[in-house]
């Protein structure tokens, strides 16, 4: 039972991260392979603050703010120009973040990470095990999903779609494209911050490996499999891929190649979907 709950909690956390990636890649068409790094920033922020005695709601709020700011900063080149640079910026953000997680030992604990992150407590109610934590993670996913849904059905959501379709026409209509893009990347960063705060407190241990490029690629795969641009896609993808990972854990393969085998399957899935079903299971064509 706990095993299943744990699966659901992690899938929910990754759904939040998939929404974050969806806002950038699906909705306004900015390539991002650094969302795990942003989530990592949120996780470390939450962990460090809580280990210093800050209550969870405050720590999470701080994580959300920091992640929104960093996401805007790291996607700023993409916001200002379309072209070759921001692919590098995105990969670069991921690599720099991982280097910082590993090397800023005083703050992050280096390669061995931070352990013993306190249990979440909100107004006297504790969330020590999966049984309680699932309430928190489900609530967060519902809030994020509601936010996404409200965003997409508002005039602002239509503006974002229009920017993806034809930016010049949006400018010619008198809209401030840069402002709209900064807004959506702040929201995207905030989602990654929520995911990070949940991840850190649920696992109670974080290290640089938890937020490296493979995780970012995994999130992209989840989004592609579920389908870009839709809310359903951002939820179906993570649940499906996490399930595949769980199934793989049951199969009897040597422990040294479990990681690579899982990655290999993700890679094959990514290629297969791009070739034969670029709209994913429940999304729109990228």
């Amino acid at each position, binding site marked *: 039972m706990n095993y299943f709950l744990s699966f659901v909690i992690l899938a929910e956390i990754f759904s939040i991260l998939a929404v974050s990636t969806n806002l950038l890649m699906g909705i306004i068409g900015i390539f991002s392979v650094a969302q795990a790094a942003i989530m990592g920033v949120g996780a470390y922020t939450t962990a460090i603050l809580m280990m210093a005695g800050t209550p969870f709601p405050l720590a999470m709020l701080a994580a959300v703010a920091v992640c929104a700011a960093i996401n805007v900063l790291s996607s700023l080149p993409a916001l200002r120009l379309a072209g070759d640079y921001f692919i590098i910026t995105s990969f670069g953000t991921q*690599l720099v973040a991982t280097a910082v997680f590993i090397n800023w030992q005083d703050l992050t604990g280096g390669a061995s990470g931070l352990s013993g992150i306190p249990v979440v407590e909100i107004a006297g109610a504790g969330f020590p095990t999966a049984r309680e934590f699932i309430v928190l993670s489900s609530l967060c996913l519902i809030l994020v999903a509601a936010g996404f849904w409200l965003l997409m059905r508002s005039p602002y959501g239509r503006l974002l779609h229009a920017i993806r379709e034809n930016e010049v026409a949006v400018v010619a209509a008198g809209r401030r494209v840069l402002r709209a893009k900064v807004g959506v990347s702040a929201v995207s960063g905030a989602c990654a911050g929520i995911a990070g705060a949940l991840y850190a407190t649920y696992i109670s241990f974080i290290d640089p490996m938890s937020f490296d490029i493979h995780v970012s690629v995994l999130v992209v795969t989840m989004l592609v499999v579920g389908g870009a641009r839709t809310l359903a896609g951002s939820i179906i993808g993570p649940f499906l891929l996490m399930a595949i990972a769980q199934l793989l854990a049951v199969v009897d393969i040597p422990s040294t190649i479990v990681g690579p085998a899982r990655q290999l399957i993700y890679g094959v899935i990514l290629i297969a979907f791009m070739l034969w079903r670029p709209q994913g299971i429940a999304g729109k064509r990228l």
Partner: protein
Amino acid sequence: MLYLQLLIDGVVSGCAIGIVSISFSYFYATTGIFHVAHAGIYTLSGYLAWWMVGLGTPFAAALALAILAAVVVGYLTQRLLYRPLEESGATPLVLMIASIGLLTVLQNVVAILFSPNIVQFDLPWRLSHTAIGPIALSLPQAILGVLSLLLFAGLVLFSHHTAAGKRIRAVASNRELAEITRLDPKRVFAQVLAISSGIVAVPGVLVGVDQALQPYTSLLVLLTAVVAMIAGGIGSLTGAFGMSIVLAVIQSLSVAVMPGRWSVAAVFGTFILFILLRPEGLIRSRFSRAI
């Protein structure tokens, strides 16, 4: 003296990155596809050579076979992945995601078939040094430097002075026109990716001989190479090669002023800061491929 040695080390590793950079740039400028999987071909060729050497194949033969394998993988990548995607009207974003998928596949095939751990070539000569004055150069470094310069010169000559090279440049500069004039871009693209892959196999093997092989580090090499390509002006082979050496030397010398583990962060941090402040780039590029 330390600085001189660091400088030479930087130049040599810059030559290797330069080859990665020009081979990536050659395909990118021709097709506009951001071929991230290039890093996977780099890794694959290194491990193939390592495996063959382990079986007792002479090194030169192993290198040649690794190059051949890379050519085949590159050709198949264009034929079986990029071409069908382009024919189905895929956006550059989709092409790049597929490329990331292929990179993941190649890296992990290597990890599963060979080893997920760091491995070294079992070649006694890889540790022998030649001293030129105060500078020590390992034999693999010397071979790497010489071969890189030859490959660079060879690609420039090929591109500008052979019929095939000119055909490729014609396709790169105007694809629609090339289609009308029966240059057949699709075939040309496959040729270009085959050539690029063969070239990138050389540093893929030799850097492995000089240092070690690891399945997942090649992405960093590729990104440094792409940074060099952008800084040197997309489409310019000389710019890409030159900037690779400059970047590698900076990275190498930076070890003298700060801990080596920060150099990755320093290089990319500088780059990100730089393009935030000067988004038009160091040298205004002729291409602006929107993704």
